[in-house]
């Protein structure tokens, strides 16, 4: 028989509901479909008619793993519209909150979702029986991230303390001091994580991706910077819609994002790392080098090392911020509505998250656009699968399917985030 089909009806260890279909005919891959059947979410429509101050809390509900990212992109976009400048200490605390979310999200993915692929386990539960100390380390890291988000956000998931202009209430110095002790232990655990994942077996696989991430002149990117790529992109968030387009594809409830000029692109830890290695802290750089990573990483299977290096960075950066902590004089900058469109793009754990809001003179949202990281990576995931399967047709069926699933999890796809919109097309004859 010359044709075969790899079919995974329900992808495990990803956020949300998706499936994969790869068709092979005459030793050629004829079709690859990453199917997302999580229902569409319509968040952009919910936002219309709401006050600007509600946007951070409404959009946080899009994702239970990266609510801070939604809050940050919403705040920055609306502050852009109203011309609000936040005070430098508030900016620092936002970075600290974002560090907490990266730690939570990366620890979960590295330890509980991705590591079992490399070590040959069906899931983290079976892995925990043989590797209890590793799993406990992962959980303690996740907990450290939760503690950061809890302190600044008011609770671990769907924080309630973020507002346009800053925060509602700020914790006092003693509460921050306790956090520093937790983060020092977490940083050691993160360094151990890098050493651990560096020993995993990695398929020999590289592609010449277009990496897209924020780049800031002085720091590894969280909240600010220009959108750059290794193929010449260099724009502000305001120019996003001129360069990127969203396309509907029949097999998925999530839109596919493309660069208008060049097609698929790659966002997330590996893109950030490869475009910003020079901005990592020295400790994170050293950990990466010791793990055998170059300054650019083109093997998507090694994303697990990159995520671990970012764990080190996030702990290190959080400690730096805590070390220079200044409690701001006021918890938030004043916001005066005006008729404007605002743009914001920040680095969610899974990559750039773009928000755009058009607002009226009372601060009512007239329309909103949200482009989450997973919809931006969908095309690249499908391209990876097409190339990977083509190059590995001789693998036994089961192993090939295993590695296909692993190839999807390289991107830590958040399917719940990606299905935010569905275009309905009516054809009439």
């Amino acid at each position, binding site marked *: 028989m010359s044709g075969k089909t790899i079919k995974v009806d329900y992808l495990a*260890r*990803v*956020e*949300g*509901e998706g499936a994969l279909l790869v068709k092979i005919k005459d030793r050629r891959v004829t079709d690859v479909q990453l199917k997302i059947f*999580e229902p569409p979410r319509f968040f952009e429509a919910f936002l219309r008619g709401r006050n600007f101050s509600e946007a951070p809390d409404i959009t946080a*509900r899009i994702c*239970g*793993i990266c609510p801070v990212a939604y809050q940050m992109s919403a705040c920055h976009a609306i502050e852009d519209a109203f011309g609000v400048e936040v005070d430098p200490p508030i900016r620092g605390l936002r970075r600290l909150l974002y560090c907490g979310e990266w730690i939570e999200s990366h620890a*979960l993915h590295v330890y*509980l*979702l991705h590591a079992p692929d490399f070590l040959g386990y069906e*899931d*983290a*539960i*079976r892995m*925990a*029986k043989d590797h*209890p100390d590793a*799993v*406990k380390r992962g*959980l303690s890291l*996740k*907990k450290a991230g*939760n503690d950061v988000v809890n302190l600044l956000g008011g609770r*671990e*998931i*769907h924080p309630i303390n973020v507002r346009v202009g800053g925060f509602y209430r700020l914790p006092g110095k003693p509460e921050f001091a306790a956090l520093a002790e937790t983060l020092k232990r977490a940083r050691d655990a993160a360094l151990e994580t890098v050493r651990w994942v560096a020993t995993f077996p990695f398929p020999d696989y590289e592609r010449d991706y277009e990496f897209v991430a924020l780049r800031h002149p002085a720091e590894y990117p969280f909240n600010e910077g220009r959108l750059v790529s290794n193929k010449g992109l260099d724009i502000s968030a305001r120019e996003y819609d001129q360069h990127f387009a969203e396309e509907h594809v029949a097999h998925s409830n999530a839109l596919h994002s493309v660069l208008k000029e060049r097609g698929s692109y790659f966002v997330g830890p590996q893109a950030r790392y490869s475009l910003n290695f020079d901005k990592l802290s020295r400790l994170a750089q050293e950990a990466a080098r010791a793990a055998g990573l170059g300054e650019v990483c083109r093997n998507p299977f090694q994303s697990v090392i990159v995520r671990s290096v970012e764990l080190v960075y996030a702990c290190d950066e959080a400690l730096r911020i805590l070390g220079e902590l200044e409690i701001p004089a006021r918890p938030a900058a004043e916001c005066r509505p005006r008729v404007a469109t605002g743009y914001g793009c920040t680095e969610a754990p899974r990559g750039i998250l773009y928000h755009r809001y058009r607002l009226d003179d009372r601060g009512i949202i007239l329309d909103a656009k949200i482009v989450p990281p997973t919809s931006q990576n969908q095309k690249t995931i499908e391209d990876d699968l097409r190339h990977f399967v083509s190059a590995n047709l001789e693998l036994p069926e089961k192993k090939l399917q295993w590695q296909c699933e692993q190839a999807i999890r390289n991107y830590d796809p958040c*399917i*719940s985030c990606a299905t935010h919109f569905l275009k309905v097309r009516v054809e009439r004859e």
Partner: protein
Amino acid sequence: MTAGQAEIRIIGVGNSFRSDDGVGIAVARSLRERLSSGVAVLEQSGEGTALLEAWKGARAVVLVDAVQSGAAPGTIHRLDATAGGIPQAFFRYSTHAFSVTEAVELARALSQLPPRVIVYGIEGRNFSAGEGLSAEVAEASAAVAARILDEVLSLQERETPCTNSPSCQIAS
């Protein structure tokens, strides 16, 4: 006493903005004022690692969540997770990559499962965006709340101070 120290913890799991998925939260809220001190009532989204933290150190846990197992809406399931595994398909409504079933099994694998874990699953009808419970689910939630009060009483009876006497050792 903080929730992290309570010997007995009631954990309501779900999302109040997804209709019947909020039934676990509704049960927890209805119990909050009706339980004696020493019993903590917690609300959780169902994210697994947070659950592991929520029951850490507890002696007994009663967890309530919505389920979609194919039974009639409002059906009440009671599982003793101490004794054995929870069927995989039971809590599959959750879109979390790591949810209630996994949290229980991971805790078991790491020897971090509290000595007693009782899980109530209430069969939901409607999981779409919105607030409020279907009639049969609301009815079941009241019944489950009453049963949990009884569970707590019997759990507390077992808690009678142990003087390490021979009879106590036999009882345990």
